[in-house]
C-alpha cells in the first residue's frame, strides 16, 4: 500500500474514532458526499467499530475484597526507624536484604510509584511549574539528558508518609526507566546518600535542606545508577546545576552501560 493510501486509511480510522479536528472532519464528510466508494469504506469501518464493541458484552463485575493495608501507626513507626537509622551516621550503607526495615519501606512505596507513572508522548514537555515542591528545587529539575534519560512524566502522588510528593519520571531509549521522588520532610542535618539494592531494584535517598530525595531504577547497571545518584545528590546539596565534568561523566556512563534489563 502506498504512503498516500496509508494516510488516507489512517484519516478514515481517525474520523470514526473521533480523533480529527473540525477541519479534517469536514474534509472527510465532503469527500464521502461525492465519492460513493469512499463513503462505503467509511460506513464499513464504522460498522466494524460498533460490532467490535458489541462483540464483548460486559458480565456482572463486583469489586474484590481488598487486602488489609498497613495501619498508619505501623507506617509511621517505620518512618521513625528510617530517620533514626540515618541520623545515627550510617553514612554509605548498602542494604542487601529487602527485609531491612528502612530499605523495605523505601522499596515498598517508592517502587510502587516507580512502576505506576505513565510517560507523556515523545516530544511533549511535562509541566512541572504547578507543583509547589518543584518551585524550591535547586537549582531546577535535574536534567539527565546527558545520560540518555529524558524527563517524560511530572506528577504529584499522595503517599502515606509524604503528602504531595513530586514524582519525576525519566525514560531512556533502551528501556531504562528512572524515578525521582522529592518531598518536603522534617529538616534534619544533611545526611550522606543511602544506597539500597534489592534484586533488580536500585534505590538511593538523602535529605538536602527541607527536601527528601529518593531515586529508584530497575534493571539498570549499578555503576550507572550510582553515578546518577551521586551527581544529583551533590547538585542538590550544593544548589548548583550539573557542571561540564558531571555532564561528561553522565554521557560516558550511558555509552559504556548495557541497556536496562526488562
Amino acid at each position, binding site marked *: 500500500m502506498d504512503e498516500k493510501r496509508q494516510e488516507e486509511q489512517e484519516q478514515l480510522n481517525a474520523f470514526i474514532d473521533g480523533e480529527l479536528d473540525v477541519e479534517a472532519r469536514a474534509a472527510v464528510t465532503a469527500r464521502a458526499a461525492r465519492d460513493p466508494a469512499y463513503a462505503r469504506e467509511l460506513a464499513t469501518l464504522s460498522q466494524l467499530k460498533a460490532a467490535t464493541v458489541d462483540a464483548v458484552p460486559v458480565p456482572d*463485575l463486583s469489586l474484590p475484597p481488598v487486602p488489609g493495608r498497613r495501619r498508619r501507626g505501623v507506617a509511621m513507626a517505620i518512618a521513625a526507624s528510617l530517620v533514626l537509622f540515618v541520623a545515627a551516621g550510617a553514612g554509605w550503607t548498602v542494604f542487601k536484604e529487602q527485609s531491612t526495615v528502612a530499605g523495605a519501606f523505601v522499596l515498598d512505596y517508592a517502587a510502587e510509584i516507580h512502576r505506576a507513572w505513565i510517560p507523556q508522548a515523545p516530544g511533549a514537555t511535562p509541566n512541572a511549574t504547578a507543583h509547589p515542591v518543584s518551585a524550591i528545587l535547586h537549582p531546577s529539575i535535574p536534567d539527565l539528558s546527558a545520560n540518555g534519560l529524558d524527563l517524560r512524566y511530572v506528577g*504529584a502522588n499522595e503517599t502515606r508518609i509524604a503528602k504531595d*510528593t513530586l514524582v519525576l519520571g525519566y525514560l531512556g531509549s533502551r528501556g531504562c526507566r528512572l524515578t525521582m521522588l522529592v518531598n518536603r520532610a522534617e529538616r534534619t542535618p544533611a545526611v550522606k546518600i543511602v544506597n539500597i539494592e534489592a534484586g533488580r531494584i536500585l534505590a538511593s535517598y538523602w535529605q538536602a535542606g527541607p527536601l527528601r530525595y529518593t531515586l529508584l531504577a530497575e534493571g539498570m547497571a549499578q555503576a550507572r545508577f550510582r553515578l546518577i545518584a551521586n551527581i544529583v545528590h551533590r547538585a542538590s546539596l550544593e544548589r548548583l546545576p550539573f557542571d561540564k565534568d558531571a555532564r561528561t561523566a553522565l554521557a560516558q556512563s550511558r555509552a559504556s552501560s548495557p541497556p536496562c534489563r526488562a
Partner: protein
Amino acid sequence: MARIEPYLGRLYRYAFSLCRDEDAARDLVQQCAVKALSARSVPKDEVAYRSWLFVILRNTLFDDARRRKSAEAMHEAVSERENRSSMELLSGDERLINTLSVKQAMAKLGENDRDIIGLIDLAGLSYAEAAGVLDVPVGTVMSRVSRARNRLIALLEPSNVTPISARRQIR
C-alpha cells in the same frame, strides 16, 4: 462508589481482547482492581488515573504470561492481504460484519492487533491515552489502528468466516 467502579466494564472489554477468554478476563480485572485499590498512591488527575488502570491490567497480564512461560504467539498474524487497503477488500462482495463474525475474527488476530483494538474500541481510550499506555507516539497508534482494522476486515472476508455448526444453537 469506589473510584475504579466506572471503569470495570472497559477494563473487562480490554482484558477480553487480550485473553480471548471470559473467565481469564474476569480474573484479570479482579487482579487489576486489587492492585489499584490497595495501591498506596494513585494519580490524582482522572485521565492519568484511567490510563494507570490500563497499564496495571496490561502489566499484570504480561507478568502472568512470563511466569507461566506462556506459549501464546506474540507476533502479528500473517496475512497475505495485509498490504491491501480496506477499500480494496471491501469492494465487491458484502462482508459479514456482525458481533459474532467480528468476535471470531478478533480471536484470530495477532496479539498486537488485539491490543490496539482493545485499547481504542473496547476500552474507549483516545489515541493520546493509548499512546501513553503503550509508550509510543500518537502517530504510531494511528498506523497500528488502521493496520489492525485492515487485518480484521481481511479475516471477515466470506472465505475466512467460520460457519456455525448446524447442531449448535444461537442464543
